[in-house]
């Protein structure tokens, strides 16, 4: 898996060395060792190559070539952008339950968690590591779920762990207001790499909603490499929305790993609109009985955007249910990759797994490579999967036309409806409304083009 670009990681070594040398007192030895192991692994693996089966359709050579520089200084971005305007970056529902990161650094002036129950923790990861109340729970979970041995990007992120968020929902606590973690790339001439790291732990019978967003104020080419680890204990519930609206020139690579405890419930919706190139590795592991999860998503790409979703839904124990609906809308010369693996292991009897990937092509030049994969080792299970790639249906267009709706408008309405099946399930009103509008704007821009 080593390729010619694997020599490039040296550009990250300097930053890595600086990070390990800085703020020495704040870094417990376990974290230093973790970074050391992970960075060493990154140097071994390098960036993946298209010769790697898992990266066959997604070429990340541009990320290596660009040599994005991570900012490991302690200084918080002092750009005045957004100062005093927390509403600009968060959502109305999360004004008192949001952590806002600008160019990878937590902006306390834009963040507030005053609206959360006092027992709920939502703080910077670095703060959690240094706080003896949380140090142990962080140490016992961080990088214990998202595997950095196999994935070079996860290894790179882990080698740079410092900025990010720690969310802890204590036992039995229900948090009504959604908690938002927003990563904003601010500036016109960014060429930075940022390594957001998020750890969410939902204790027994807790319940919460997480909104994870990535956005940009300009059109810079920058590199986000995020890793999110989610741990749900027995009976815990989490609704998780990820909205990726990076700049159209950016690179967004992310791993989400969810480890789900007995009888827990995890409902996730991932919306992908942004980035020139994006890749999301999503791993949901059910190593306990009675789990139910939804792993849904929508990607909407245009022009020369490329998006790749690789998901693994791993049924390891009996009586778990998984639902996956991923939909894609592709325009221009865009390209999408969907690779969805559902594993039903030997012990996972009475599994109920459903997986669907549907793609709507709006142009003749767009292309999608879809590969739903079902591997079943248990014999008493209910599983189904399917994939579809199609265009707007002529009979549907005719039906709308007979109601006086112009074909252009009808196409937009049908495309909107296609997206709505995923967007419509978002329960945070402002996020849903914003996405609805974004879909319509994209479609209208298409008409005007």
């Amino acid at each position, binding site marked *: 898996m080593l390729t010619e670009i694997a020599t490039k990681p040296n550009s990250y070594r300097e930053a890595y060395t600086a990070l390990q040398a800085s703020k020495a007192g704040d870094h417990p030895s376990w974290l230093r060792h973790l970074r050391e192991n992970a960075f060493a692994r990154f140097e071994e693996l390098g960036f993946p190559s298209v010769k790697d089966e898992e990266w066959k359709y997604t070429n990340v050579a541009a990320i290596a070539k660009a040599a994005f520089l991570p900012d490991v200084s302690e200084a918080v971005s002092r750009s005045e952008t957004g100062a005093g305007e927390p509403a600009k970056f968060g959502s109305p529902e999360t004004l008192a339950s949001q952590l806002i990161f600008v160019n990878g650094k937590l902006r306390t002036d834009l963040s507030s968690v005053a609206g959360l129950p006092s027992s709920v923790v939502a703080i910077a990861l670095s703060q959690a590591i240094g706080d003896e109340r949380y140090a142990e729970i962080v140490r016992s979970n961080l990088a214990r779920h998202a595997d950095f041995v196999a994935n070079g990007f996860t290894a790179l992120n882990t080698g740079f762990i410092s900025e990010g968020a720690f969310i802890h929902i204590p036992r039995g606590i229900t948090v009504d207001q959604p908690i938002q973690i927003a990563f904003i790339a601010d500036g016109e001439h960014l060429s930075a790499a940022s390594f957001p790291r998020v750890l969410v732990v939902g204790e027994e019978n807790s319940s919460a909603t997480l909104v994870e967003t990535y956005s940009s104020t300009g059109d810079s080419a920058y590199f986000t490499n995020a890793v999110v680890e989610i741990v749900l204990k027995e009976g815990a519930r989490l609704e998780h929305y990820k909205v990726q609206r990076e700049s159209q020139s950016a690179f967004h690579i992310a791993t989400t790993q969810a480890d789900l405890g007995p009888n827990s419930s995890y409902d996730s919706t991932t919306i992908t609109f942004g980035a020139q190139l994006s890749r999301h590795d999503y791993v949901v592991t059910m190593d306990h009985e009675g789990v139910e999860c939804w792993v849904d998503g929508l990607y909407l790409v245009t022009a020369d955007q490329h998006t790749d979703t690789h998901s693994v839904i791993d049924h390891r124990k009996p009586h778990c249910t998984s639902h996956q609906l991923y939909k894609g809308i592709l325009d221009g010369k865009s390209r999408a990759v969907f690779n969805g693996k559902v594993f039903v292991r030997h012990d996972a009897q009475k599994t109920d797994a459903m997986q669907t990937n549907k793609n709507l092509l709006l142009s003749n030049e767009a292309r999608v490579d879809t590969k739903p994969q079902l591997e079943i080792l248990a014999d008493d299970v209910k599983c189904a999967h399917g994939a579809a790639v199609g265009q707007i249906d*002529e*009979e*549907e267009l*005719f*039906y*709308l*036309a*007979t*109601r*006086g*709706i*112009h*074909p252009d*408008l*009808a196409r937009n*309405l*049908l495309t*909107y*409806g*296609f*997206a*709505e*099946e995923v967007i*419509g399930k978002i329960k945070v009103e402002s996020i849903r409304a914003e996405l609805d509008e974004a879909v319509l704007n994209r479609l209208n821009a298409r008409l005007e083009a």
Partner: protein
Amino acid sequence: MLEIKDLHAGIDGNEILKGINLTIKKGEIHAIMGPNGSGKSTLAKVLAGHPSYEVTKGEVLFEGKNLLELAPDERAREGVFMAFQYPIEVPGVSNAQFLRLAYNEKRKHLGEEELDPLEFKDLLKERAKVVEMDASFMSRSVNEGFSGGEKKRNEILQMAVLEPKLAVLDETDSGLDIDALRIVAGGVNQLHTPENAVILVTHYQRLLDYIVPQFVHVLAHGRIVKEGGKELALELEAKGYDWIKTAADAGAVTIPAS
């Protein structure tokens, strides 16, 4: 209102309509009957402008305008409506959104101001009474998960909102139980005025017990082979279509000039 002159049309090179002549005046209700394959649904689709059908000869004037030159959406905005035999499902778009969009497209065409969602909601609530539909249908996706009867009622609701001058109802009675048939027919009767016209395309006489036409036209092999008043429908019900087909094949049925 509508004048069809020597209309020939087909699909994929097969001629299905072989010279239809029909004149419809405002205030009238016409029934087009005929056996399967006679061309009655084709006639409905050609009037609505289905892109798969090709008109090879003849003309259709709607209020003096050449209907065949207009795109389907333009025909609709001019006041032609077709209720589908198999209404299409539109996932992700609510009935209310869809109806408001269609309604406002028509308003724009007429140079009238568009209605905002709240104003439209009131109008929709009023019109929904015509087919006894409750508010829960308005927030559901268009036709998605609707029963056969609900879909047909939804077609008539669209007609109630769009208030067409000419409504072509294609096999609206098919697949309806007696209660749904009564509601659908009741809706059409409420919407029929001296200013508009209705074409009922149907295989069975049953619908005509509820919506009474002044004129009945019988189609066979792409031609109108018999015309008469509402009694003709009863005669067909009693005798079936075979005698018509046989007679048409033998050329024994006179085709009345319209």
